[in-house]
């Protein structure tokens, strides 16, 4: 019977299985295939903090969601159209996220009494399909013995049953690749490379992958193939990239553009460790990675390296920032360049190590003793982590200051197609090391001058102090955590001097705003009364929510902040132009607090801390309510265009 091909403009698939089932790899491969095909896409990996939680249980479920489309999309999607569930626990854990009508492809192999019990099922939900009491009646369910077919397909390689069954994720990938017409070469090449050293495993995986594809083609279970056309994108060379990888590349790029070698002092922590892993591969760029004994030693070494004329970087997550606070204060006082990367995760305390959150903004802003201003830069998407890292380095080096680079768990592990930038287009960063004395002590009778070096004499434009590195003769000087005398930099307990220095350090950070481009306000009609302000990884959900509102025929404006400290100069004016300001955040209102404090604006919070990105549909409803209030109209987002739901 010929198969039918259906055109769709976008699909959200969630692969779910046990932590040991290789779901992250499966999702990643499907993503690479979709990227190579030319779809726009956004991914959302979701995995437990435990490396191997008890097999078959709900806490052990790991999933990977990929949203791909024939048009530009912004989020990994609120709800999956298709769930691939490799065991009872994966089915149970993900069911509540599925909309009515969603497809479920489920591996029947593990639906034994034992596994059902482990997942908390009292009865096999697959046994009652089509019955009056069918728990899965709202969905289209495709029960398939994926494991059984995999084992059968790879029989010839003589693997143990366990090893043979492990290839089931590739069988599933093959099936889904058939269903959505994905190109297969990249996955076959990938498997050949990945398992190059273990021939039988390599062959079994490739065979399982192909068998899954062939199963799709021949079975009568699946009669429809879907086609999602490539998305139009700006010309250029693209690759798919995750936030942590883009961030690491951005740091290397900043090092190249400044001519400085990187010294990364760090301590492993989820979800930031990949930055250490990646940078440790790039020693050929002059990158030294120091895995320290603790978070404090990591930043200590980075500060020492910066004092020596290198680019000191430290990378961590929220708990690590808490430990580094005193050292960040030292970098503020000594006015040394330093990049502090915080890949935020759910808190407080150990919190949700593998889940995302934006609740470190106030810690980044204020989490130190004394008046210790630190510039804050936040990327808005996985690919944007590259540019944000370069920008953090520009500010750190130019203004001789620690800079907080606030990524988060969603950006870190999520991925998207990224247009690879031209190196020539990246900013040049000048370390401008001091080489000569800068202060005249006295002028002799013969007109000659006696000079010395003052480490706290500032550049008039940036208020940055000179960066004089050891090995430079005549510029020997001592710096430290005690208050500095203005200019000469010797210890000073003078009250007026302290007041001046506190204000000067703040003024220097404020001065950064002079170097920032004007904000881009997205207000196509120019008639919006509601402005949505966001920062960081909420860019995608906010953009998608705003699109829904606009597609339903309503006006709303959006502005997204890359710089949280200092704020861009035009932010106050922009906020003042709108009747209502909505601030969606994955925290309890931290940016909203800052905006209220600084601009006396009645910023309204939209806050979720579920460890997951905001959902665009829910956010759109919230924006709609506000539009209704601001404009005194009825807002119904279900009208007028059905594409309204397609952001």
């Amino acid at each position, binding site marked *: 019977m010929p198969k039918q091909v259906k055109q769709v403009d976008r699909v959200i698939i969630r692969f779910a299985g046990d932590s040991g089932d290789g779901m992250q790899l499966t999702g990643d491969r499907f993503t690479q295939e979709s990227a190579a095909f*030319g779809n726009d896409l956004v991914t959302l990996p979701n995995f437990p903090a435990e490396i191997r939680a008890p097999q078959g249980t709900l806490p052990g479920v790991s999933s990977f969601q990929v949203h791909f489309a024939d048009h530009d999309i912004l989020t990994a999607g609120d709800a999956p159209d298709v769930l691939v569930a490799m065991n009872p626990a994966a089915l149970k854990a993900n069911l509540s996220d599925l909309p009515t009508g969603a497809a479920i492809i489920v591996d029947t192999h593990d639906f034994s009494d034992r596994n059902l019990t482990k997942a908390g099922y009292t009865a096999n939900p697959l046994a009652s399909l089509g019955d009056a009491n069918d728990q899965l009646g709202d969905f289209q369910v495709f029960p398939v013995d994926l494991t059984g077919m995999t084992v059968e397909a790879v029989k010839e390689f003589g693997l143990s049953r366990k090893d043979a069954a492990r290839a089931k994720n590739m069988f599933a990938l093959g099936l889904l690749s058939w269903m959505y017409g994905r190109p297969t070469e990249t996955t076959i090449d990938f498997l050949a490379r990945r398992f190059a050293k273990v021939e039988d495993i390599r062959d079994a995986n490739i065979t399982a992958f192909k068998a899954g594809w062939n199963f799709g083609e021949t079975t009568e279970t699946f009669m429809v193939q879907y086609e999602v056309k490539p998305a139009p994108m700006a010309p250029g060379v693209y690759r798919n990239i995750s936030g942590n990888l883009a961030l690491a590349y951005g740091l290397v790029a900043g090092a*190249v553009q400044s001519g400085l070698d990187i010294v990364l002092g760090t301590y492993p922590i989820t979800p930031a460790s990949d930055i250490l892993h990646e940078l440790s591969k790039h020693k050929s760029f002059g990158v030294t990675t120091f895995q320290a*004994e603790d978070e404090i*030693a990591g930043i200590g070494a980075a*500060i*020492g390296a910066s004092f020596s004329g290198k680019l000191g970087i430290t990378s961590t997550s929220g708990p690590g920032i808490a430990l580094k606070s005193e050292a960040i204060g030292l970098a503020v006082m000594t006015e040394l360049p330093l990049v502090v990367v915080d890949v935020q995760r759910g808190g407080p305390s150990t919190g949700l190590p593998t889940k995302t959150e934006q609740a470190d903004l106030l810690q980044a802003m204020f989490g130190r003793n004394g008046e210790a201003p630190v510039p804050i830069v936040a990327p808005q998407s996985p690919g944007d982590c590259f540019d944000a890292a370069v920008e953090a380095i520009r500010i750190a080096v130019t203004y001789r200051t620690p800079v907080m680079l606030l990524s988060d768990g969603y950006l870190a592990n999520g991925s998207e197609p990224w247009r690879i930038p031209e190196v020539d287009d990246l900013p040049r960063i000048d370390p401008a090391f001091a080489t000569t004395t800068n202060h005249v002590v006295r002028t002799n009778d013969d007109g000659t001058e006696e000079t010395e070096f003052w480490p706290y004499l500032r550049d008039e434009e940036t208020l940055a102090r000179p960066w004089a590195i050891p*090995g430079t003769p005549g510029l*020997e000087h001592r710096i*430290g955590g005690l208050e500095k005398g203005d200019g000469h930099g010797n*210890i000073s307990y003078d009250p007026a001097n302290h007041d001046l220095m506190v204000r000067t350090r703040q003024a220097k950070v404020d001065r950064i705003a002079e170097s920032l481009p004007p904000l881009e306000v997205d207000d196509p009609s120019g008639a919006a009364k509601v402005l949505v302000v966001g920062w960081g990884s909420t860019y995608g959900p906010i953009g998608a929510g705003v699109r829904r509102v606009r597609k339903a025929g309503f006006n709303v404006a959006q502005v997204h902040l890359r710089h949280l400290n200092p704020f861009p100069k035009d932010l106050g004016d922009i906020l003042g132009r709108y009747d209502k300001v909505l601030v969606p955040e994955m925290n309890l209102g931290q940016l909203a607090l800052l905006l209220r404090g600084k601009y006396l604006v009645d910023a309204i919070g939209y806050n979720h801390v579920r460890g997951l990105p905001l959902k665009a549909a829910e956010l759109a409803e919230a924006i709609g309510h506000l539009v209704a209030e601001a404009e005194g109209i009825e807002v119904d987002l279900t009208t007028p265009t059905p594409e309204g739901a397609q952001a």
Partner: protein
Amino acid sequence: MSTDLGLPVTRSGVEGVPTYDGPPQTGKDFTSDQEVRWCPGCGDYAVLKAVQSFLPQLGLRRENIVFVSGIGCSSRFPYYLDTYGMHSIHGRAPSIATGIATAREDLSVWVVTGDGDALSIGGNHLIHALRRNVNMTILLFNNRIYGLTKGQYSPTSETGKVTKSTPMGSVDHPFNPVSLALGAEASFVARTIDSDRKHLTAVLSAAAAHRGTSLVEIYQNCPIFNDGAFDAIKGNDTKADAIIPLEHGQPIRFGAPDSSGLGQKGLVRDSETGGVKVALVADVGEDAIIVHDVYNPDPTLAFAISRLTDSGYLDQSPIGIFRQVERPTYDDQARAQVTTAREAVSGTPAERLAALIGGGDTWTVM
């Protein structure tokens, strides 16, 4: 006590640091214009003077010397030296110095710390610096008290010490810094005394020459909060019995001299405990006396000797270099990896950056 330690070194701790070849320098050239602010009579003065007059002997360019300190009385040290310096935060100097030493082979890196700074709040950084063997010299000023915070007991204070924070006596058991360092895999461990300029200078010289982390414990008197803590080893009548002198290649003997002019007492192996004990040479015979060997690859004997330090009031303490062995340094190896990686690639950094970010599975949109 001999000051010529006469120890051969295959690769010097200052190799790679540019040498000074101008007119002769003196301590003055290494003295900053800052007024020294320790209490009158503080042992820190003597150490500062000794270091200032020792630095010219190193023969290095002043701008290539860096002193890093933490917090405490002694940590003001860098301000008084006309070199590069950083007075950092409490306990963290070894980590900052690790960054400096790793970043730059051409710098001679020194850490100045105290018993509270190094052994209490910064204990973790100290042991890991020693374990890694980063090329730097750590001067640990041990006055067995907290000075800057005005007189609380420290991690080297004797049990029972009555201080502001322990009116009924401290119930903490103290650290022995030398034992701790040996346990932390240190490659160079020495102990000296603030008031013995000659010995102090000789130890500094050996420490600087050692490639790796050199830990030098300096007994330093705090006349304000712990005066007299080291009287036994400083007093002319008592020091012969209090100091157990460690000199490489020499039998370890001390106490009033016998007819041969050497000390009546000596260190011998203790078969009962497996450690080391003090015996009268007359009783055990000269051959039984341990001959000190700083190069012994096994630190066990050095550790046993370090245990002869009194943990209560200091009536007896081994002084000198306990251990000096060669082992690859962290920073040399870290730099070597970067160099190897750099030599394996060609092209400008910009070209290589373009190749890096343009790697992986890519596709082109026209």
